[in-house]
């Protein structure tokens, strides 16, 4: 069983993000990059499967700021191999579609049974990465996964659906999963272990050159959400408030 976990670096949201001079991206020069928390859940799920069965775990990530830290931490936690994909501008914003194609092009040369990645990321709130990967590789895909169970050559996954429902389905391996949550909170890798990993293990680098350029959406303007008017507080008796609400809804043409 070979599990590949695809991880991403993101601007740390505790920093005050600023828009760059062009107004087309965040200013990447002065922000700290951290790993995507859902990818951490995907890694944890992979490592839990490894703990249960004799799986090997490969983590793969695009060359992005501070990605080495994330990869070494994954090795310290128990991943067997870490791969960094180069061939793009490491300081630029890589859109999800291009990211998926780069990872898929790496996976094309790999024997794998399962690909896990975070269900979403701050720059991929729609959670497209797992889906695009699945379709590019032409293998089954499931999103918002909250539980994984291996049953021989197939996989039983629990997915969080709307309205508090959980759906369980079976997939043929190999498959791609967008992980919402692992069975347990991501484990801790002590700094000593991470430093040990840095000394004893190597990050493999693989250059990926995409033959066909990925069609991309051009960002015309990136801006912080504009402040809307504040809320209006309705006061008075329940009846007055109800009348007021009806008036508002009518005046907006909603009823």
């Amino acid at each position, binding site marked *: 069983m070979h599990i590949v976990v695809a991880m991403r670096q993101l601007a*740390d949201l*505790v*920093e*005050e993000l600023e828009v760059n001079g062009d107004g087309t991206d965040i200013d990447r020069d002065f922000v*700290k990059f*951290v790993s995507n928390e859902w990818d951490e859940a995907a890694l944890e799920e992979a490592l839990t499967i490894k703990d249960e069965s004799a799986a090997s775990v490969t983590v793969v990530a695009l060359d992005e700021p501070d990605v080495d830290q994330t990869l070494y931490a994954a090795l310290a936690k128990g991943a067997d191999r870490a791969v960094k994909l180069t061939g793009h501008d490491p300081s630029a914003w890589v859109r999800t579609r291009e990211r998926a194609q780069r990872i898929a092009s790496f996976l094309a040369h790999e024997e794998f049974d399962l690909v896990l990645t975070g269900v979403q990321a701050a720059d991929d709130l729609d959670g497209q990465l797992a889906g695009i990967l699945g379709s590019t590789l032409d293998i089954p895909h499931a999103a918002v996964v909250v539980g994984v169970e291996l049953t021989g050559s197939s996989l039983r996954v629990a997915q969080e659906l709307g309205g508090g429902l959980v759906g369980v389905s079976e997939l043929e391996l190999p498959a791609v999963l967008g992980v919402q949550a692992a069975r347990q*909170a991501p*484990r*801790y*890798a*002590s*700094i*000593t*272990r*991470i*430093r040990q990993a840095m000394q004893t293990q190597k990050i493999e680098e693989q250059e990926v050159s995409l033959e066909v350029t990925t069609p991309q959406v051009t960002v015309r303007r990136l801006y912080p959400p504009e402040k809307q008017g504040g809320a209006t507080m309705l006061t008075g008796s329940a009846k007055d408030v109800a009348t007021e609400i009806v008036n508002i809804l009518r005046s907006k043409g909603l009823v």
Partner: protein
Amino acid sequence: MLAIIETRKIFAGETEVAKIVFYVLALIVLVIFFVGVIRRLVVYNRGRRAPNFAWLRRRDPRDVPEVSERPTVPSSLVTIATNQTIIKTKHKVGVSHWLLFWGFIGLFLATSILSLDYDVLGNASRIITGHTYSFFQGPFYLAYNAVFDFAGLLALVGTVLLASRRWFSKEPQLDYTRAQKPESGYSRARIVIGDHVFVSGLLLILVTGLLIQGLRIDGEHFPSFEQWTWLGYLIGKGFAGLGVGAAAARAVHAWLWWVHVGLALAFVAYIPWSKAWHMLASPANLAVRDFSNVRRLPQPPADNAGYRSVDDLTPKELLGLDSCTKCGRCHVVCPARTGGAPLSPRDLILDLRQLADHKHGIPLLFDTETRPSPTGPMNEDGCLAGEVVVGETLWSCTTCMACVEICPVGIEHVPLIVQLRRTLVDQGAMDPTLQSALQNIATQGNSFGKSSRMRARWTKGLDFPIVDARTQHVEYLWFLGDFASFDERLMDISRTLATVLHANGISFGILFEEERNAGNDVRRVGEEGLFEMLVEQNMNAFAKASFDKIFTTDPHSFNTLRNEYPAFGLDRPVLHYSELLAKLLFTGKVAPGNLMRKVTYHDPCYLGRYNRIFEAPRAVISALGCDLVEMPRHGVNSFCCGAGGGRIWMDDSVLDERPSVNRIKEASTLDVDYFVVACPKDYAMFSDAVKTVGIEDKLKVVDIVELFAEATLSSALVDV
């Protein structure tokens, strides 16, 4: 006329056969005793030796007395001889022990002198010269009896007092109920039996010894010179008064002598295999104890992240385990145990000792706990951290050092707990909240998980700029710590301190976004790698700045900067802000108003117990015209707020009563209106605790600088 020689016959009533039996028994006993002693010494000697190991660390002139200075051997001998560490917190028990201690040393000397005369001198002289010489006669004999009867009396009084305490006292420290209760159940009945065997055995040896002395004198028809043997003489008279004549006395003496000798020999054999070993281990441990170990934590073992098995224990730690007398003082003062957490420093030591003795193949008589299943101290193959000692026990420690402070035999519990925690950290076995705090510290440099650029946000709102120590020389570099920088309530206090210093023309600056968590609590959590990383980052920041001295807001940061950073190259003096405030007052720079408040003061563990700064904050409080009422637990006996050692990042909801609540209840019994603190974590903990207790309108938690500001800055009255 026959001259009377004042002496007595050794082996007066015994036959030659009896003498041989005695010597054979004595030889067997000495073999058992020395085998035990040597096995224990071999075990100590085989303990894990760190590269810089020494039984007595070289004293460093830069060490601070009582903080990081190792006591000299002569001073330790005084400590041992006076039983000072036993007396200091429990006078009656300590004095009783002192009586027993010196009484038995006297009796041991008496027996040794007798043996020297009879066995050594007597035999040697007979072999060499053909005549048997003896100095056990005449004035020496009289003085010997007079002096050593006194020793006997001391021992008797001390032993009776201690035995009665063991029999009748209901004190909590004598209760062996575990703080961490294993699901399988456990029994400590053997430990209780061991205590009784020990003290009652001593008492029986003493009583039979005194009785045979009396019987002998009675049997010899009270020679007048035996009045020098005053205690025996009196006891003999007592027997005579009861109608025991000389013949009867000799008959009883004959068999009681065997009882006495049998008990005494059995006791000697029993020493290295039981709690009696503390008679030798505890003084040795006191002589090699090193105060610096708690303030400046030792390195992890070379091949592991932390302690996993008894092989990781150092010679001194092994000796420390053996020194424990189960006096239970640590058990009583421990804030974790008091709050209902599953940690008792006593139980921790006992568990480790039982396991260590078992692993080293040393049978420990009585002093062991039994369990129906092999868990805890009976889990011989388990990892020390997490299995022998469960994780929740180790995580409960606040590292407040109350146990180390009160331990009469100098056991250093805290470094041991941290070594065990290091293994848990390595395994990732920790509270999720702690994990996220550590991750925040690793990525952002602070436990709040805020951007490091927000660290100096508290300076907004000041009407003067704070100097950047990286661009301009300052006298004092102010190291705020995370709480004083990021906690909303404490940012106000930081501004007040800045205002006070600015108003008094103190040259100070900060590191802005480059200050990192100092790592005191990170190290005590057991995350050594992260601690080293933080030290590196802070040392880099210090290198960029220009300053003469450092002062901190946080006593925890103060401790690590003062005691641990020098090993990483920090060579500047480190002060706490309460010392700076005291200096301002006593150099006459400020003339404070008279606040006329009734206050109490809480000694932060890392300022008081750890760093012995008791006077500076008290001097400030008095100089401000406040009436300081001390809480029962103050100074070295201060009670922890519960936040130290990383506890502030862990879940407290499992406790029956948080230590901070316990502390506020203690303060609420005093007639005071203010609870003064000198530590940001204390402010946070106690502000919550007064609300929990529901007395926030009666007892107000204030920081010492708030009082200072109110008394000295008339134009900027602070709302307290």
